[in-house]
């Protein structure tokens, strides 16, 4: 059974960003958080209110639909998206199309940062905010 990343219990988040460090480290081999495919957002003046944005693992992704070149395509795994970097024209339409505001953008390469649902962020969450959940895919969509 395939699994996707979900936010299980947002209110437990302590805002340590260990998840974003883990994602960036694992997939880009760098120290930082700005290339993370998921994001913990904090709000001004509200101590302790965090919003955790993760790829919604759509079966019919809005971001891929908005991509004019087919660089961002529904993933072969059946949910979420894959990026073919060579085809990306840096138009950012994908990020704007994601209604959950979850698709992240790499300012440096000017390309989206699709989540691969690998679960590395889950491993580093000290308070179990995140979880990998089994994906049920209708055979018609598969």
């Amino acid at each position, binding site marked *: 059974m395939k699994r996707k990343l979900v936010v299980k219990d947002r209110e437990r988040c302590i805002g340590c960003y260990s998840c974003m460090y883990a994602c960036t480290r694992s997939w880009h081999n760098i120290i930082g958080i700005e290339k993370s495919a998921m994001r913990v957002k904090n709000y001004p003046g509200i101590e302790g209110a965090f919003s955790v944005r993760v790829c919604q693992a759509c079966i019919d992704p809005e971001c891929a639909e908005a991509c004019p070149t087919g660089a961002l395509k529904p993933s072969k795994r059946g949910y979420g998206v894959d990026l073919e970097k060579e085809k990306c024209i840096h138009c950012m339409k994908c990020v704007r199309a994601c209604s959950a505001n979850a698709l992240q953008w790499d300012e440096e390469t000017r390309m989206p940062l699709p989540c691969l649902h690998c679960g590395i962020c889950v491993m580093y969450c*000290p308070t179990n905010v995140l979880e990998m959940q089994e994906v049920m895919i209708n055979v018609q969509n598969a």
Partner: protein
Amino acid sequence: MYRMLEIDLSTGETKVKDISGLFSKFIGGTGVLTYLALRELSSQLDPLSPQAPIFLGIGPFNSYFPSASKTVAIFKSPLTGDLGESHAGGRLAMAIFASGFHVVKITGKAEKPLYLSIDNEKVNLVPCRSLWGRSALSVERILREKEDNRKGKKSILRIGPAGERLSPIASVTVDSSRHFGRLGLGAIFGSKNLKAVVISGNRYETIQNKKDYLSLYNELFKDLAYSENTYKYRDLGTSANVLPLSKINSLPTRNFSQGFFESAERISGEYFAENFLAQQISCAHCPIGCIHIATLRELFADPHMYKTIKVSYDHELIYSVGSNLSIANAADVLKLLQFIERQGWDAISIGVVLAWATEAFQRGVISISDTGGLALSFGDSQTYLKVLEKIASGENEFYKDLEKGVYHCAQKYGAQDLAMHFNKNEAPGYMTGPDAFVGYAVGVRHSHLDCAGYSIDQKFLGRQQDIEKEVKMMYEESLWRMVTNSLVTCLFARGSYTPNVVEKGLRLLGYDVDLQWLTKTSRIIHGMKYLLKEKLGFDFEKLELPSKLTKIYTGRGMMSTVDFKERVKVYAKLVSQDMYLAKEALNQQL
């Protein structure tokens, strides 16, 4: 490469310097900043003049390893005239790293209020006259929204009105309720017309040797997130100390009149957790989550109009506006803390000032005409709130004086024996015995954080004293902190960052070091600090124990001046060897 960004607020000019050489010699953080400060701070320098520099620095471990979450600030303290050093968490260390720098140096003075915006190498001086006068809390709300178009995570440093008024006990607030609290950095910001600093970026470093790096990272992460080493900080936080300290006569109560607080249970960590704790949060890249946020719901109009405030608490705050003012109502402690947060005072310092004022008033040194009709009484939180309001509005000379610190007040009004300060810095919340007090006196920043003497006292509770051994323990703890404060790891992570771990980590980052080098470098940094302090007028022989403390029972019984002086002497001797080493190293440097 380690780089320093220099900004002159007078001219708007910026410079970038490669300071990798300094990092290889002095590790980073406090080591590098002390070296830089030693060349620029002098006894003639007015800390509130345009020339006075502010150094903010991180170290080689920041962003690389978990709980390396602190930033060091070094400046000349307007409170003591001595070395000003304060550390803060929040997102600042992460943001400085992401901006591509490790040290930021700010000098000059803006003509009109502005905030400094740093986004990678892009530096902007943004006029903000309409923010002048606003609380430290509201400035963050406004700037976080105003600067929201930037992509990288922002860290926001700002002062409240206390810093604008150049109060030498004003702090700089960092993100959510973290502070450069002690020794008056807020006044320096104010003197430069600098209301805030917003810093962010998207710079990064590539991981070398990923396998070894990950193995060390994971070892540290597991320990910090789940082990006993950090359990106390995650659970009740430092306020877990309130009850045990009171039990051993070590919780300063009513201006250090006694160490037992009869109502400790009503302001204990347990009580706060059960009744007010909303959640724990953490600094960026720290899985401990030690920041305890309380919510206080208050009825403001009948029958059902409520407001809710959120404010963080910990042991030092509970001591300074709780037991030391004899306030036994946790909700009142939170209300006072929120006022202090908005104004931007250091909570320890302002609490010690209020405690002194109360006792001085009761002794007749302060009169009712000074206080404008207010009778100061321990335990009277309503009046304390009014006092804070009067200080904030600068109602009369007396209230204006109160925010100049307890040393200043006692010099001017008297009751010097009641002024709880060490080298002019207001005392922190432990009266465990000689090691705590001697630690405040001899420490590089006159804080409980220099060598944790309170912890050594507790090890010697009920045992024969051993001056040489105790002082040696303080000294060695202080030395090791030269290393961790250079990395810059959080003190709450000190159980995980053992010498072996630090050595391994530094080697991974390309430092050619071993344990012997670490010890020697810690001594050089320690020595440089005292060379700097000496240059600014610090003298071990002038250190004094507030005389009130010789008349009260501490955790380890009565204190004596003779014993205090003896311990200071032993410490000074150890330090003199480090100063010699530092001089030697500096000569080679030249």
